[in-house]
């Protein structure tokens, strides 16, 4: 047993849901008890999706266990097909159903639906979310991809593989990379899983190459496409200016295009901003990096080579790609941290004493508690990681977004300079209120009864100030000199909308 407080990754069937939800015309029948439907809210709330994930849960209960959970599963398959009419049905079990050993694949096949049924074997007690997503995508590709039809085209075409639902900026990365490829002279054939239908997956081999944007999710499927159809593959996620240059050069080489025009006019401000004098203060600032392997390795490279920071820690929760992170950490001369225990990460952050933390939402909370500036670079995601504006991580535009996102939490160069000049100044210190905020008015002759003061403390801290002001305003308007519990609630009723 592993003691876990917060987890970086959910169970593998959540990874399967991220693939199914990203695609069109796919439905996933999950043998699962009531409660597992919580996963729906990840998509509808965090990503603000406007429809439910295409998942039917069998919702078996304790009283079904002695009886016919298999029959329940088959009925759920029939009902889901009738209602949703998918092109492909994915079937599988969550952690509890795995223990029942009902064999969803065999049961679904026996139902005899007129569409392909793809069974998913996702061992919940060994594997996690990203592995589940990779396995699901691989199973889909393997079941559906057909040999190339071999049509001639004016421009070469690539598949963009890996973007899924609940991915860190996947939606925007796809747009940025598609635009970049267009400038290079290549078209996108299929983007998958995000936005693809099973029929699209059938034509994957018609592209001239595969581009793996997120190896955590698409490496297995791309390797299989390479083995089966001889498709070349580019696995250099274009995160950061240098990585984007490498990516362009490699895609151009594979497709026989000329990278020179795009490389000559990248249209990014980040390199110049990094060289501008104000950025001098960034030199050697200590940065700690933790996230999924792809984003962590990319962040380490940007932080050191493109911003001039000093890397003091590098780690990942992706055990599947731990080797890559170890290699990168060794190259930077830091100890690699491979763990999915956030307390270990917190310990490492405290020990490394960084001035900037680049991590997931979990590290953001740790950094906030420690008072260290932080920027988010990786899943697990939060509603904040789906900004309304276009904000990719990939391509030259992504490099500019990253420059802004990472540098803004830090104090700017001139501010730091002023701070040391005015240190210990009587008007300019931590405890003095900013001068543009008027000095607090002298307290009126209002007294709070001890009981009312106690009651006020039960109000959540973020609205307590407002409650106190409102109550005092109310008491003054009524000519009260002592604020009692009754007065507090009278004021609450008075000010309620």
């Amino acid at each position: 047993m592993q003691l876990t407080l917060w987890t970086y990754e959910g169970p593998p069937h959540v990874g399967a849901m991220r693939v199914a939800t990203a695609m069109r015309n796919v439905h996933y029948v999950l043998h699962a008890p009531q409660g597992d439907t919580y996963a729906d809210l990840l998509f509808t709330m965090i990503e603000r999706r406007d429809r439910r994930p295409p998942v039917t849960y069998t919702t078996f209960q304790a009283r079904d266990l002695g009886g016919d959970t298999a029959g329940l599963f088959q009925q759920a398959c029939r009902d889901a097909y009738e209602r949703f009419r998918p092109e492909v049905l994915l079937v599988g079990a969550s952690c509890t159903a795995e223990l029942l050993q009902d064999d969803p694949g065999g049961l679904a096949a026996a139902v005899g639906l007129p569409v392909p049924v793809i069974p998913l074997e996702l061992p919940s007690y060994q594997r996690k979310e990203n592995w589940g997503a990779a396995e699901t995508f691989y199973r889909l590709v393997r079941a559906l991809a057909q040999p190339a039809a071999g049509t001639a085209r004016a421009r070469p075409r690539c598949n963009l593989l890996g973007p899924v639902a609940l991915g860190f900026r996947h939606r925007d990365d796809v747009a940025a990379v598609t635009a970049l490829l267009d400038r290079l002279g290549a078209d996108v054939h299929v983007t998958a899983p995000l936005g693809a239908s099973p029929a699209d997956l059938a034509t994957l081999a018609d592209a001239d190459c595969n581009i793996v944007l997120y190896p955590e999710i698409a490496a297995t499927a791309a390797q299989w496409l390479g083995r089966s159809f001889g498709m070349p593959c580019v696995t250099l996620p274009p995160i950061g200016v240098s990585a984007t240059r490498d990516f362009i050069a490699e895609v151009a080489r594979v497709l026989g295009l000329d990278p020179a025009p795009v490389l000559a006019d990248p249209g990014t401000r980040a390199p110049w901003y990094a060289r501008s004098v104000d950025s001098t203060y960034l030199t050697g600032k200590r940065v700690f990096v933790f996230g999924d392997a792809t984003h962590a390795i990319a962040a380490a490279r940007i932080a050191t080579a493109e911003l001039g920071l000093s890397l003091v820690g590098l780690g990942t929760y992706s055990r599947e790609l731990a080797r890559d992170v170890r290699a990168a950490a060794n190259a930077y001369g830091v100890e690699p941290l491979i763990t999915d225990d956030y307390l270990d990460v917190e310990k490492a952050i405290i020990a490394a004493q960084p001035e900037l933390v680049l991590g997931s939402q979990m590290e953001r909370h740790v950094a906030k508690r420690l008072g260290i500036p932080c920027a988010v670079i990786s899943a697990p995601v939060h509603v904040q990681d789906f900004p309304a504006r276009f904000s990719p991580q990939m391509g030259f535009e992504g490099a500019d977004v990253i420059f802004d996102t990472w540098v803004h939490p830090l104090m700017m160069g001139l501010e730091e300079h002023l701070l040391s000049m005015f240190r210990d100044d009587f008007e300019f210190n931590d405890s003095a209120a900013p001068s543009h905020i008027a000095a607090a008015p002298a307290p009126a002759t209002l007294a709070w009864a001890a009981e009312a003061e106690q009651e006020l403390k039960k109000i959540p801290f973020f609205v307590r100030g407002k409650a106190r002001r409102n109550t005092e305003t109310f008491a003054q308007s009524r000519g009260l000199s002592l604020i009692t519990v009754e007065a507090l609630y009278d004021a609450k009723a008075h000010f309620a909308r």
Partner: protein
Amino acid sequence: MNGALHEVGAVQEAGHAAGCADAPVLRQRGQREVFCGLTGIVWLHRKIQDAFFLVVGSRTCAHLIQSAAGVMIFAEPRFATAIIEERDLAGLADANDELDSVVGRLIARRPEIKLLFLVGSCPSEVIKLDLSRAAQRLSRSLAPAVRVLSYSGSGIETTFTQGEDACLAALVADLPTTRARRLLVVGALADVVEDQFRRLFAAIGIADVDFLPPRRAADLPAVGAGTMFLLAQPFLADTARALESRGATRIAAPFPLGAEGTTLWLRAAAEAFGIAPARLREATGIAEHRARTALARHKAMLAGKRIFFFPDSQLEVPLARFLARELGMRPVEVGTPYLHRAHLAEELALLPAGPLLSEGQDVDRQLDRCRAARPDLTVCGLGLANPLEAEGLATKWSIELLFTPIQGYEQAGDLADLFARPLVRRLKLAV
């Protein structure tokens, strides 16, 4: 579908003057879009301030609790999951040793913990890991510093708020015995609400009041033949049964939602303790009037609006009663995961006839009914809210009704506001 619904409504309106007491109930089984009982940990660990909740389950359980709570790491939380791994599934003796070692590490790390709940999950129930025996064993080895109890929050046995029921029922077995005549208020309430009720009971003349769960493990109330208990939440079937088996008597009452509900709830307690109606009126009059004033402000927005409840917390029937009687809303369907006839008898009698009562869920069919009915407001879980909004239906997330103080006079206006706000917002937005 719409026609059928109206037919049901018409039959009931014609047939029953006594509210929904005898209304037929549509029972459905199928996919349920609800949380399991583990979710209760999110508010229970805030309530009992020196308790720790250790779920013995899978990565899914850990992910569920963290997702239901939002990723809010303000502090090291007082809950965790002992994740069962492949090697634990090999043999039970091994799993028990593993559990002991996890608990040992936990207690060493958190010495301030006085009460530890081992919380069963779907996988622990299926592999028949006996957590009650584990709790006894650990209680012996950790006594007297830490008391260890167990309950199941598994989705194969509990729906959402039933987790609190199971937790409190486990506490009941551990309560000391008394013969004193005391009032026990049962069900987790926000501290601020609890204090308001304590003051009201004192004003009414009931001084000996205990609350379950207590804020601290050491303050467990005593219970016995003299105990009269008043449920503050409608989902406490097992807890009530456990209290009755300890000799306590349940005071039948509606639930303290809204001005009327709160008064009837307090009145039931006053009657049980032989307190004159005049004294009750004197003690509650001002606060009740304040609540009615606060409610009046929301009536214009809510009166006449049609409301549809998806099953979630078992609070649906009391909420529908409050919204129908005090704010003039028209419930279309009142879905609840489980309809406890006895505990809801007073509520059902008060709920005006008309709505379809449904128990259990087949979510796709219920969505069909909801779309056909086109209610003005739909109360549902977070998995359904945005999709329904995208279809043009205004929604109220039901989970907020558990995380926000809503009981009692001073919160009546806040409760109405929770329902009015989505409608007000729609009027404001011009994009």
